[in-house]
Structure formats: structure tokens, C-alpha cells
């Protein structure tokens, strides 16, 4: 993926970018590697014909992180005019603008970058406020149609699920991703994403297929490491976790009452997100963290799967629902 032409270092994107393809994650790894090799890297998206919403946000977060770490918003030159999705994706969604704007730091404030179309930077509190308004608008837009098929209680419960998911996910950023611990390796002290507790958020309503997507991404320690390495649980239990395969630790961390805060009466957030069943729409949840990709359909047939992927920093969570009619 990394090519040298004279003094230029070029990273070429594959045709498709999505968490389904390991090649996509290798592409991000190549961006990191190239950024160590050269002050300025050309990222060539000419071959790109498709990118998933979730991967686009993850890619944006990783590029912003590298820009911040190098303290150079111009460390990537983006080549994308020949891409078949130059207009539809790079320009119309505002992705290119977000990429080139870089990430901003306001001292002592957590940051988010909302939907590309309305690129903004907000605190965690403001982000929740903004998203709650988004949910209320969605509920009002869909209510008249949904009321023909479902009782009010079910409609309310569905949007309540989305609201709870957003509140739980946002708090995981401050409580579990960017943690304070004397066990943290020293390189976190110089990691700008960590220092400023950066997160990226994306909410999207695709009018063509009535698919609604909410994605949240951070570059913290990850769910598995947060649960198994930065916990105040006793040594014998930390040893038990360290002896387990990573995917099993992930599954345990997603369970009810399981928290890095030992005997803290906590650990219900991810469980609530994972078990919010829906009958109104086809709902799915996907979580990537510490190289584990977890997916679950929250509507029948409730299929759950877990896969290993290459390891990248951070956690990414997607809640996606599609009204079939």
C-alpha cells in the first residue's frame, strides 16, 4: 500500500473501505507507518469506489489523530479527484473538508465532530443535547407512519432505546476510554487524542432507504484493555482475565454488572445497549475495539457474531436501524 516516488511517500487506498475487509484496517496501519517515514504523505483515494459510513468516521478519526500527533494539519495531501465517488462522497458529504480541516483542540474540553454536513466541535454535554434533539425530530418525522402499525408505547420505547444508547456510549468515552490510571503506559502522556479526550460522532439519515445510523468513535484504550488492564479488581481476577482470549474478555465486558470498577454497582451501560430489542425496525449494533469486531441484530433472528480484526487504537460503536416499509 505504501509506494515511494522520488521524495514522495504515497499510500494507496483499496477499492473498498469497510470493517468487513482486513485490507481496510491495514490501510489505516499504512497511514501510521507512512507518517513515521515522511513529514508529508500523499493519500491516494483514486481507486476508491465504496466506503461504509462507519469506516469513513473511523478513518477521519485516525487521520485527525495523526495530524494532531504531528502537530501538522497538512501532513496528508489528499488525492481523490479521480475517484468515482469524488462528488457523491468526498464533496457532498463534506468528508474532504472535515479531513483537511483537521481536528481542533480547545483546552480542557472534550471534542466531537458531528455529521460531516454540519461539521462542528462540541463538548460531550453539548453533543448529547444536539443528539437528543435529533432523536426528537426523528420521532416526530416517523411517528405518523409508525402509528399506523405500532402502539405508541412501542414507538416511544424504540426512540428511548436510541436515547439511552447515545447517553451510555458518550459516557463510556470519559469513564472507560480515556481513563486515569497509574498503570497507563507513558506514551499516553504524549497522545493528543488521549490528553484532550477526543471523540468523533456521526448521525445520518439516508432518505433513499430510510436507514438511520449513529456512530461514535474514540481513540482511547479500548473496551478489552479498559476492563482487563485498568481495573481495580483484585490480582487473582486480573490474572484470570489475562489468561482469557481477547474475544472472551470482550464478551464478559459487555455483560451486565461487569465493569472495570470492581464492586462499584456499575457495568450496566453496554449491557443495556446490547439488549435493547426492537420490533419496529431492523436494528443492528456493531462494536470494534482492541481488534475484536462484535455485531448483533437486535431484531429477529437476533444473530450475534464476534470476529478478530487487526488491532487499531480506539473504540468504534455503530447503532443502525432501517425501517423496512
Amino acid at each position, binding site marked *: 500500500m505504501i509506494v515511494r516516488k522520488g521524495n514522495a511517500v504515497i499510500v494507496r487506498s483499496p477499492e473498498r473501505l469497510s470493517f468487513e475487509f482486513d485490507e481496510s484496517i491495514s490501510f489505516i496501519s499504512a497511514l501510521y507507518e507512512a507518517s513515521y517515514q515522511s513529514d508529508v504523505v500523499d493519500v491516494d483515494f483514486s481507486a476508491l469506489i465504496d466506503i461504509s459510513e462507519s469506516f469513513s468516521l473511523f478513518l477521519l478519526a485516525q487521520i485527525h489523530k495523526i495530524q494532531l500527533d504531528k502537530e501538522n494539519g497538512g501532513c496528508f495531501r489528499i488525492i481523490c479527484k479521480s475517484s468515482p465517488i469524488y462528488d457523491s462522497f468526498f464533496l457532498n458529504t463534506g468528508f474532504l473538508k472535515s479531513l483537511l480541516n483537521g481536528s481542533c483542540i480547545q483546552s480542557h474540553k472534550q471534542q466531537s465532530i458531528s455529521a460531516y454536513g454540519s461539521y462542528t466541535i462540541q463538548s*460531550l*454535554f453539548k453533543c*448529547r443535547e444536539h443528539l*437528543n434533539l435529533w432523536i*426528537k425530530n426523528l420521532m416526530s418525522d416517523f411517528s405518523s407512519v409508525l402509528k399506523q402499525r405500532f402502539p405508541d408505547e412501542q414507538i416511544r*420505547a424504540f*426512540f*428511548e432505546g436510541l*436515547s*439511552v444508547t447515545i*447517553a*451510555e456510549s*458518550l*459516557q463510556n468515552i*470519559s*469513564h472507560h476510554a480515556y481513563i486515569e490510571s497509574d498503570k497507563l503506559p507513558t506514551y499516553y502522556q504524549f497522545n493528543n487524542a488521549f490528553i484532550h479526550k477526543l471523540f468523533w460522532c456521526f448521525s445520518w439519515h439516508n432518505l433513499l432507504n430510510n436507514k438511520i445510523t449513529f456512530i461514535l468513535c474514540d481513540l482511547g484504550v479500548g473496551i478489552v484493555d479498559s476492563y482487563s488492564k485498568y481495573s481495580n479488581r483484585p490480582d487473582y481476577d486480573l490474572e484470570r482475565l489475562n489468561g482469557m482470549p481477547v474475544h472472551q474478555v470482550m464478551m464478559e465486558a459487555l455483560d*451486565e*454488572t461487569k465493569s472495570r470498577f*470492581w*464492586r*462499584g*454497582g*456499575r457495568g*450496566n*451501560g453496554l449491557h*443495556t445497549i446490547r439488549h435493547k430489542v426492537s420490533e419496529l425496525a431492523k436494528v443492528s449494533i456493531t462494536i470494534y475495539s482492541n481488534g475484536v469486531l462484535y455485531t448483533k441484530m437486535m431484531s429477529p433472528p437476533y444473530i450475534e457474531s464476534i470476529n478478530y480484526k487487526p488491532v487499531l487504537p480506539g473504540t468504534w460503536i455503530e447503532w443502525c436501524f432501517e425501517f423496512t416499509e
Partner: protein
Amino acid sequence: MEKQCVINVLNDFSADPWGRFRTDNPVSSGEEFRERLLNPAFQNYEKVIVDFTGIEFTPDTSFLGESFIGLVKRNGWSYEDINQKLQLVGSDFLVQLVSRLINNAKNEMSVFY
């Protein structure tokens, strides 16, 4: 000690309670709710009725946990005190959720002691 008080979350606190600490939500977090309304009510009344009627959505588990389990973890009440003094008014989902959170936290204590 007076007999009972009613905390109407919508009127006395917020239409949109969420979040565990003030650092998450400086306006209407579980920490704020417990310290400003819930714990003083527990100190002064035999029965505390918390009415969630009319709020926008059921709060997240962080808000509920910090409010009610926080009474035990931070204010020194026992789970028996909570069961005796607290009465919740709200949707079945909310009442069951709080009850489950309290039971889980209580069992956590007994399992690991």
C-alpha cells in the same frame, strides 16, 4: 421525622435527566440529583416517592445507578433502607430497570464479600 415526600423529577429537577457525574452533565446528572434532592429527602423523610412522570425519556443506567446505588456507595444508606424508603413512579420499564440495578448491586456485594 416527617412521614413522606414526593420528588417530581420533571418539576423539581429536569425534563432530561442523564449522566453519572457533573463532569458528564453539569446540569442534570445522577450525582446532582442525589446530592441536591434524593439524599436530603432520605435524611428527612420516612418515605421518599420519586415520580418520573412526564420526563422526555427513561434516563440511562449511569444516571439511575449514581442516583440510587450512590445512596449506598456514597451516602452510607443500606439496600434495606432503599427498599423500605423508596417508591418509584414511572413506566414499568423504568421501575423494573431501577429494581434490577439495585438487586444487581446488592448481589454483587454478597457474592464478593
